[in-house]
């Protein structure tokens, strides 16, 4: 009885080990390609592998991850993987592309659980809302919705989502100012 279970478990683990070895490389490749693709969408044009050059800055009990985009020997920008816990549904994750001086280049939504048709207008596939951030520097651009006295037009009927979005971008900017000089 024990022997049967042992043999089955041994066979099963051997099979899994084999498949793991076979798929390890494609999995890493797919993950790397996904990261590079996401960084390409937000950071200024680069020719290095930002997925491999990264650092993290602690922020609010978690970390903001930065990927460094370089062209030749110059740092042309950063892509910051940032988050906000103030969203309407769960955690909101953004990838914010910065120029070295902190100007926002472009923003992509990595992960969200906002309401379809309302909060999800922050994604580029649904509306042009998020383009208002491009080219703005949070140093002189108040990352708060107009209702709260800031400079950002909120999404209609999705003020909470808009606030969380600003919160995430602000967190990325603060982290960049804190640790971006490396």
């Amino acid at each position, binding site marked *: 009885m024990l022997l049967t279970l042992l043999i089955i478990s041994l066979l099963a683990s051997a099979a899994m080990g084999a498949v793991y070895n076979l798929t390890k490389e494609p999995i890493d490749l797919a*993950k790397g390609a*996904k990261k590079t693709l996401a960084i390409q969408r937000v950071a200024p044009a680069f020719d290095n592998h930002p997925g491999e050059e990264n650092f993290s800055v602690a922020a609010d009990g978690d970390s903001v991850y930065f990927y460094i985009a370089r062209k030749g020997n110059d740092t042309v920008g950063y892509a910051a993987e940032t988050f906000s816990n103030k969203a309407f549904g769960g955690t909101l994750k953004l990838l914010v592309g910065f120029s070295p001086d902190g100007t926002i280049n472009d923003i992509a939504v990595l992960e969200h659980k906002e309401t379809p048709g309302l909060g999800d207008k922050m994604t580029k596939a649904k509306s042009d809302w998020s383009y208002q951030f491009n080219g703005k520097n949070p140093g002189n651009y108040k990352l708060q919705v107009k209702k709260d006295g800031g400079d950002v037009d909120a999404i209609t009927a999705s003020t909470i989502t808009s606030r969380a979005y600003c919160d995430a971008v602000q967190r990325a900017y603060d982290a960049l100012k804190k640790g971006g000089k490396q």
Partner: protein
Amino acid sequence: MSQLKHVTKGFLKENPTFVLFLGLCPTLGTTGSAINGLGMGLATTAVLTLSNVFIALFSKYIPDKVRIPSFIVIIASFVTIVDLLMSAYTNTPGPHGEPSLYDNLGIFIPLIVVNCIVLGRAEAFAAKNSVLPSLLDGIGIGLGFSFALTLLGTVRELLGNGSFFGHKFIQGDGMLIFIMAPGAFLALGYLIMIMNKLKKKLANS
């Protein structure tokens, strides 16, 4: 020819979703779009077919007392293998940065291991039958499940997003409730109603 009924029964007579009401958690959770439903259905089919074949092969050597743990080990291995393969080959994001199939299905792939269809077929069919009928049973029930999930996904996507397999044909949003959780129950309820009607008609004629 008589073996073929093991394949066809999964679509209507013993459809896991519309008739047996098994595996409703992934059914409701992954059918926000047709392609997600189809992906989930095919992943389950792969696990179901492989585990059915192996359980039919080994069942006479497995003592009754460790039957369930052995089945779970076999099923869990195949789920892990499918999960690894999917994270390697279906993890490419769409052209506008839409999440990949692997990201969309997320936690539901590892959860196939607790899908009652898989263990149910292992217990009720594969353990008592030889390899060929078990293989056909796995394919049949799996394809029936895929069919149900794709149908439900198509209906929800059509009504909720105004698109068919990702091809949009209306401007803006559809009836959004259908791609949210309550819409899953609504759409499933109506589909079951239509299926029951169909079955009655078939039985009468």
